[in-house]
């Protein structure tokens, strides 16, 4: 192919993917590395890229330590309960102790944070619960349509250069020292040029994975998924291929959302105080809990004492009730909005919540004449997503901060948020074991990574990096191969999309989704799987991988889709290995192991990790200890 090779050399910190995590990294890197070369390589345009492209109506992680509301350990308790015991408490505590400073900066930069009029009038000392409008204990409300352009500004001002429209396909490895990163490569989706970034450290913030399971939407609507269709699992694909240890990849998330539009329900439940009922107007949730408590145990679902203990009911268990009620034939489940929407203020919040975050839901209601003031809309459970910053903890196994994790060898190897590959850091969805970080926490993790990356360089750890010409040339050939495959194969046939020698990216994606859905517990099988199905799934993924060697791309845009598909495939493979390894149903409502329906704390109160061998492709699965730093006493 005749595409130019463009080399950017001597980079100190390369930020791959500048969503909320990546922008935080670029911003902070400049503070600690005044003289360092900071470069962003982003697949889209950082002004509107990533999960926050549409905007958000809430910041879901804000402690309010300033107002005496919560301490970091409170958040650890909450996240741990929601994840049925499983979080990296060192990382969660660390994120929570810094997150407020990010939110205060966002406000300084112009993000309109809503104020609680009742509280704002009180004198400073009497603010009690704080002046920001609380949606819930951890969430504050914002007018966040321009959240992303505002934080992108912070990254652009402080980076040396932002390369938009670069699909990063692989990380570069150091040829001088094993297991050390040396940059990344990719191609420009507009010009087709091959880009080589030689860098001492890399912060990967390339986002979670939507569309690896068959979506509920079909045909023209297939892009209507809750997590953005451009979240192609690159954060995982890039890291797994580089040999980084991954954790919690079995912890895929299923969300209860407004049907078809996937409008989020958070503001509805928390601020509007709406509630759900089955098709016959009955409360159904609590009915399913006694049976479920048998399976998960009192530590996670104390049916008798729940309203004394105020322990939140884990999100997955509420899903379980939803799924069971629908399976029992009493669906659909409705959100009761007609009461709340009689209040004009709440009605406005209800609509603006979508306009600022999930416009598709407003479009759907307009198209179907559903005004929630008069009709209670339907809810649904989504297809599963793999991501590490929402209520799930998928991602890389990372080092914690020295003052918290320093004495634990399994949790600490010197640099905060560094993966098990030297010089390779994560942020947001790419960091494992830190659920409930959300947008503000992802930005914070980016900041933590960048500071640690500067230290890594200053400590001389990146000396003597060498990238051979062969590595650069081999990657180039590999990246552009789908164009070659198409050009050659295209001549064999009259036309159309069906060829005996290549598959196009979209049918390839559909094949991946079908097999993940059917073998790894997607919507069409009620999130159910077992060891036999998972093993068959792995076999089929292997064959799909062989076929992906023959993926064809008609143009540069399809080349983008081809590489997104490969990252999704790698992510899926890792998910299946993890799901097979954890021999229990830890999160009923996210997925069920039909052969191991019970939660088994005796054998599985542990974190799981995997590591893919770079040369053989074999996965090594391990259990890792779960250290608790916070007691159970709820405050």
């Amino acid at each position: 192919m005749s595409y130019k090779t463009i080399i950017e050399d001597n980079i100190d910190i390369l930020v791959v993917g500048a969503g909320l995590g990546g922008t935080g990294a670029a911003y902070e890197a400049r503070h600690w590395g005044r003289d360092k070369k900071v470069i962003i390589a982003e697949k889209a345009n950082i002004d509107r890229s990533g999960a926050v492209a549409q905007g958000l109506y809430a910041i879901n992680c804000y402690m309010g330590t300033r107002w005496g509301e919560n301490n970091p350990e409170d958040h650890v308790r909450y996240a741990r309960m929601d994840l049925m015991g499983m979080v990296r408490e060192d990382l969660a505590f660390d994120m929570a102790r810094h997150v407020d400073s990010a939110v205060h900066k966002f406000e300084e930069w112009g993000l309109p944070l809503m104020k609680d009029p009742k509280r704002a009038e009180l004198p400073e000392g009497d603010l009690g619960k704080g002046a920001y409008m609380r949606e819930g204990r951890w969430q504050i409300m914002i007018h966040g349509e321009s959240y992303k352009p505002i934080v992108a500004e912070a990254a652009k001002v402080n980076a040396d250069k932002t390369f938009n429209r670069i699909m990063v396909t692989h990380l570069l490895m150091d040829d001088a020292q094993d297991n050390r990163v040396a940059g990344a490569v990719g191609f420009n989706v507009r010009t087709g040029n091959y880009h080589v970034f030689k860098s001492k450290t890399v912060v990967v913030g390339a986002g979670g994975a939507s569309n690896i399971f068959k979506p509920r939407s079909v045909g023209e609507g297939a892009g209507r998924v809750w997590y953005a269709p451009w979240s192609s699992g690159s954060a995982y694909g890039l890291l797994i291929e580089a040999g980084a240890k991954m954790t919690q990849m079995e912890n895929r998330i299923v969300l209860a959302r407004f049907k078809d539009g996937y409008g989020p329900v958070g503001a509805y439940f928390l601020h509007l105080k709406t509630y759900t009922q089955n098709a016959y107007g009955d409360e159904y949730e609590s009915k399913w809990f006694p049976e479920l408590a048998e399976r998960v145990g009192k530590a996670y679902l104390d049916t008798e004492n729940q309203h004394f203990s105020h322990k939140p009911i884990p999100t997955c268990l509420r899903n379980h009730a939803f799924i069971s009620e629908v399976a029992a034939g009493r669906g659909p489940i409705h959100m009761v909005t007609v009461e709340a929407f009689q209040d004009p203020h709440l009605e406005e919040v209800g609509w603006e919540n979508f306009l600022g975050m999930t416009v598709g839901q407003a479009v759907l209601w307009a198209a179907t004449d559903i005004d929630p003031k008069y009709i209670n809309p339907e809810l649904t459970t989504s297809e599963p997503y793999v991501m590490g910053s929402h209520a799930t903890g998928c991602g890389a196994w990372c080092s914690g901060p020295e003052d918290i994790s320093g004495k634990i060898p399994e949790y600490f190897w010197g640099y905060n948020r560094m993966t098990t590959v030297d010089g390779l850091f994560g942020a947001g969805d790419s960091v494992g074991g830190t659920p409930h970080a959300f947008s503000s926490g992802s930005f914070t993790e980016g900041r933590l990574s960048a500071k640690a990356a500067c230290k890594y360089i200053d400590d001389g750890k990146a000396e003597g990096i060498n990238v051979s010409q062969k590595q650069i040339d081999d990657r180039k050939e590999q990246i552009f191969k789908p164009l070659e495959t198409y050009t050659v194969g295209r001549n064999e046939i009259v036309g159309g999309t069906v060829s005996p020698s290549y598959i196009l990216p979209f049918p390839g994606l559909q094949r991946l989704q079908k097999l993940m859905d059917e073998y790894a517990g997607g919507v069409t099988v009620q999130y159910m799987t077992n060891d036999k199905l998972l093993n068959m799934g792995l076999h089929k993924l292997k064959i799909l991988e062989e076929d992906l060697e023959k993926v064809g791309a008609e143009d540069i845009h399809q080349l983008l889709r081809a590489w997104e598909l490969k990252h999704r495939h790698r992510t899926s493979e890792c998910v299946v290995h993890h799901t097979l390894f954890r021999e229990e149903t830890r999160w009923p409502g996210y997925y069920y192991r039909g052969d191991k329906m019970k939660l088994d704390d005796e054998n599985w109160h542990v974190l799981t990790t995997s590591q893919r061998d770079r040369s053989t492709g074999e996965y090594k699965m391990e259990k890792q200890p779960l250290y608790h730093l916070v007691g159970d006493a709820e405050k």
Partner: protein
Amino acid sequence: MPTFVYMTRCDGCGHCVDICPSDIMHIDKKYRRALNIEPNMCWECYSCVKACPHQAIDVRGYADFAPLGHSVRVIRDEEKGTIAWKIKFRDGREKNFLSPITTKPWGSTIPDFRNEAEPTAEARNSELLAFEPESIRLDDGGLHTLESNNLELIEGVYY
């Protein structure tokens, strides 16, 4: 569709192409106007709609569940710092909303660290991030640590 472009309004300026996070707004070679080349990869995120200076882009709900005859239009005004929405139901009812998008003039408030004082060596070796600890509590309180919060790591368990 979900986004589509009105032939008579588009002048091919490319703002939508520049912004679409999914890389699906492209300029048609023959007509020299924009189009959505891959509707099934569109999130209806409205980034392109907001960016179009001629309001040439519209959205028609996804065909797998949305009937025809509705519209959700938007005008995002950077200078005023507001965004205005007009929702038209299939049966003709309308709803209008207006929200702020920023409280500060664009590009005026983000510090370029190159112009700020160098961080101290002590800060570099601590767990603090830029502007911390002041920016956390907005008082003199320090960063939370295990010691300050009386926490201790409890031994992990291997099975």
